[in-house]
């Protein structure tokens, strides 16, 4: 027996009340015989405490009623061994509620809850059940239990999210849960069985082990129209949205374009059933800084998440960059220049000069400086560059053939130990370690394909951060904070002279990433996938803060944790003197509400194998849990019965007393 609220036992103190009342007597115990009352006058009747209790039956009934009432509040539960479980027919029911975004369409979620209720209703008394919510992650909401009420209550704690659900990943995630069950498992999947959630390989839908699979399809005939893509150019202000209809009937929608909260344009879109349409808006006039662009469809439909799509656009500003070549006849800066020119989004304006002209150039006019071969710098140029960096400039320094004669790196002063490799001409090395979290190397694993035939072994200074090194262990890319500025040192050439990096596809993104980093993150990506994370280090924001679409602080950027983008809308990042926004859009895979066809669903369900009737040893051990039987209703019934009898007995006593008085 379990008492769920033992504090209510304090209510038993109320028994003192009837005990006191039953000692109260209107009749004075000091009773004397007197010859005649003829000359007496009645005094004020005095209620006195009798030495003995009166009306013992009535008292017993009243104490019993109070005790039962207290017990009703205490909610005792009788736990008894489950007979059916002992006989081996108990099963574990895993109820998986699909909480993907498509479940919010129409009344799918209500149907899902009804289906879950029906499942609980159909459970045998000895069966245990647990609730799992399947959305972005698979979350165990309720541990295996025999308590049906707790299970039903847990339904209310789950609701559809904004994430898609991949059924293949779901079945893999459930594998561990199914294997941990100590009873034969029945897997109930309450879902809209969205076709886009199916994995590439059908076999991934098969549950592992002997699991009986029951799919409860709650999909209806809801239609949907979604904005599939929204593309815009910050350079020319063009903006195009792709609208996709998943409806069986033709639809007419109005696409509304808003910029920074103000309505800019409206376009009418006519959509045939299942058709796709492109909506091109007029040229946007972008304001300075980040612009919040939002396109939404009106009127809305059953699935509201994909009726809106957002985009963050920053008006590009030309950024002059100085490329210093050893000799203008040489092409050591050619590849860098070509790459930068191709990076229209960054709006870089590279200008190439010879090293000997450096001393006469006003470096502070440039966003950053790239020296293709450090060996080309004479003393005056070194001094000019050093002053530029120390005063807050950014420098990318390459080490090419002209650097072979150097004993130390210009500006930063690391020791150079001759050239690496290059002996037989065919020997090369590749990138060994790469700090993918560094903003200049993020997503650039393709760099490992590059072959490095020669490089300059550098002994790193303690102030250097080696962010990329070769397989030989020699540093390839170092970063040094110098004065108020910073220096990136690439220990090989930036052209094809010592490596083939310049002809690798990754070269342009690499230069773009380096440029972004040297610009201080100005080329920050303004769009992120729902459910992805913002790598705080990669943003290059120090001491800033990030705000979610509701404007609430999400996480301080001083920490090392990444920020999970789990809401739709604009995330705002403020820090380091910059203000950036990131647009997080709905996953269009969820927009197509089309369910899996009946045949496929049947095949999927057939993948489940009915579990063996006989329990295993583990399942027998699992029957140790006893079955709860709440006694509350029985106790309330007894309270009512007790009150009835108490009233009758009390009335009986009253009648006797009235009779005496008469």
């Amino acid at each position: 027996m379990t008492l769920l609220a033992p504090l209510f036992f304090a209510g038993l103190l109320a028994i003192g009340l009837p005990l006191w009342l039953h000692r109260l007597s209107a009749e004075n115990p000091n009773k004397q015989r007197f010859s005649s009352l003829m000359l007496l006058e009645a005094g004020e009747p005095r209620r006195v405490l009798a030495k003995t209790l009166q009306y013992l039956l009535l008292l017993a009934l009243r104490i019993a009623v109070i005790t039962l009432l207290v017990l009703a509040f205490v909610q005792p539960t009788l736990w008894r061994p489950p007979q059916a479980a002992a006989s081996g027919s108990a099963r574990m029911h895993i109820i998986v509620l699909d909480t993907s975004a498509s479940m919010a369409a129409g009344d799918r979620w209500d149907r899902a809850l009804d289906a879950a209720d029906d499942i609980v209703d159909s459970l045998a008394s000895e069966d245990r059940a647990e609730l799992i919510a399947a959305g972005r992650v698979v979350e165990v909401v309720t541990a295996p239990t025999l308590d049906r009420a707790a299970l039903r209550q847990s339904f209310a704690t789950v609701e559809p999210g904004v994430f898609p659900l991949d059924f293949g990943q779901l079945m893999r995630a459930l594998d561990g849960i199914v294997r941990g069950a100590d009873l034969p498992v029945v897997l109930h999947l309450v879902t809209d069985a969205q076709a886009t959630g199916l994995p590439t390989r059908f076999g991934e839908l098969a549950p592992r082990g002997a699991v009986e699979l029951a799919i409860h399809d709650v999909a209806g005939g809801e239609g949907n129209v979604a904005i599939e893509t929204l593309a815009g150019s910050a350079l020319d202000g063009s903006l195009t949205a792709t609208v996709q209809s998943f409806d069986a009937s033709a639809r007419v929608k109005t696409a509304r374009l808003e910029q920074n909260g103000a309505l800019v344009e409206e376009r009418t879109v006519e959509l045939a059933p299942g058709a796709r349409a492109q909506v091109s808006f007029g040229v946007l006039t972008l304001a300075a800084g980040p612009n919040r662009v939002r396109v939404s469809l009106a009127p809305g439909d059953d699935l509201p998440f994909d009726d809106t799509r957002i985009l963050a656009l920053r008006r590009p500003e030309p950024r002059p960059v100085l490329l210093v070549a050893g000799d203008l006849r040489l092409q050591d800066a050619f590849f860098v220049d070509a790459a930068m020119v191709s990076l229209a989004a960054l709006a870089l304006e590279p200008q190439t000069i010879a090293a000997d002209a450096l001393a006469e150039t006003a470096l502070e006019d440039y966003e950053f400086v790239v020296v293709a071969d450090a060996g080309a710098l004479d003393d005056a140029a070194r001094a000019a560059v050093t002053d530029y960096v120390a005063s807050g400039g950014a420098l990318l320094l390459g080490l090419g053939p002209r650097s072979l004669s150097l004993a130390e790196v210009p500006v930063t002063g690391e020791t150079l130990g001759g050239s690496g490799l290059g002996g037989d001409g065919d020997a090369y090395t590749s990138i060994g370690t790469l700090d993918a979290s560094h903003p200049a190397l993020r997503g650039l694993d393709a760099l490992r394909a590059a072959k490095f035939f020669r490089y300059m072994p550098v002994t790193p200074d303690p102030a250097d951060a080696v962010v990329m090194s070769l397989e030989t262990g020699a540093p390839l890319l170092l970063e040094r904070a110098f004065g108020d500025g910073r220096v990136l040192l690439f220990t090989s050439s930036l052209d094809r002279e010592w490596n083939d990096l310049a002809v690798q596809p990754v070269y342009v993104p690499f230069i773009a990433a380096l440029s972004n980093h040297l610009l201080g993150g100005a080329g920050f990506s303004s769009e992120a996938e729902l459910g992805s994370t913002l790598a705080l280090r990669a943003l290059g924001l120090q001491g800033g803060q990030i705000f979610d679409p509701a404007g609430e602080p999400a996480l301080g950027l001083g920490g090392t944790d990444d920020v999970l983008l789990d809401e739709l809308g604009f995330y705002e990042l403020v820090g380091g003197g910059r203000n950036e926004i990131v647009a997080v859009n709905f996953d269009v895979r969820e927009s197509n509400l089309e369910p899996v066809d009946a045949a496929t669903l049947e095949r999927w369900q057939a993948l489940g194998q009915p579990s063996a009737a006989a329990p295993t040893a583990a399942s027998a051990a699992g029957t140790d849990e006893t079955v709860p039987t709440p006694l509350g209703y029985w106790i309330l019934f007894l309270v009512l019965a007790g009150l009835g009898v108490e009233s009758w007995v009390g009335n009986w006593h009253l009648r006797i007393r009235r009779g005496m008085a008469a």
Partner: protein
Amino acid sequence: MPATSEAAPRHLLQPEVLAGLANLDLIARAVVEGFLTGMHRSPFFGFSQEFAEYRAYTEGDDPRFLDWNVYARTERTYIKRYVGETNTRLVILLDASASMGFGSRAVNKLQYAKYLAATLAYLAARQHDAVGLIVFDEQIREHRHPSSRPGQLHGVLHAIDRTTPGTGTDLKKPIERFREFEKGRGLVAVISDFYCDPEAFLKGVAPLAYQGQDVALFQLLDPQELKPELKESALLEDMESGEKMEVSPIFMRSRYREKIEAHIANLKKAAIGMGAEHMLVDITQPLDAALRSYLSFRQRRGGVLGR
């Protein structure tokens, strides 16, 4: 030793002492003898015929009582009167209601009343008076007609002895019975606690007075009825009706005493109003006070009655 000879009978009159005597006859004898021994100097000595006075003859007087010697000397007719020259009748009306069973000491009111009734009967018999008895509560429980025959006293004492507390009190019935059967004049001694309405009582007893009876009322009360002492409020139960009443000690100490005194005074006033004698008897007191009152009353009445 005069001191001891007076002290011993006096001691015998104490109710507690009398309660130790088993025989009511013995009690009556002891009381009366002791009483008479102690009053040898009293004006009540001797009940033989004794000249009292001459009174002028008036029309209607019996000519047989004319004193012819005086007539011879004075030629005037006089009637000669004596004290106690005739026997009288005593009828005792004994209240045996339940309230008479009350008593806060060793002797309750009924026991005391029985002693008093027996004593009066014995005293009357000793004077050769006819003695009768009516025992009553709500009903007439015993009725013995007055008689001076030998054995009458024994019968009366026996009837008194077997009296026990009964139910309620109804003074009207014994008086009606008395009027119905006792036509001659005499003494009527009513022994009761008189818990009744004085006015109603007056209406009941007045016909006796009109009939020429000399009525003596012995009102017997316990000290707890006269001056009750309650330490705390109590639930008092009427011994006759069984009715209960919560009374406070303050009431019993003040208001009740006033009411019982007023009740006694009213009763006395009513008795005087109809020519009866009222005697309040504290049942813790010796019987001689009551006997003395009775003899005084008899003397006064006897003087009037004698011819």
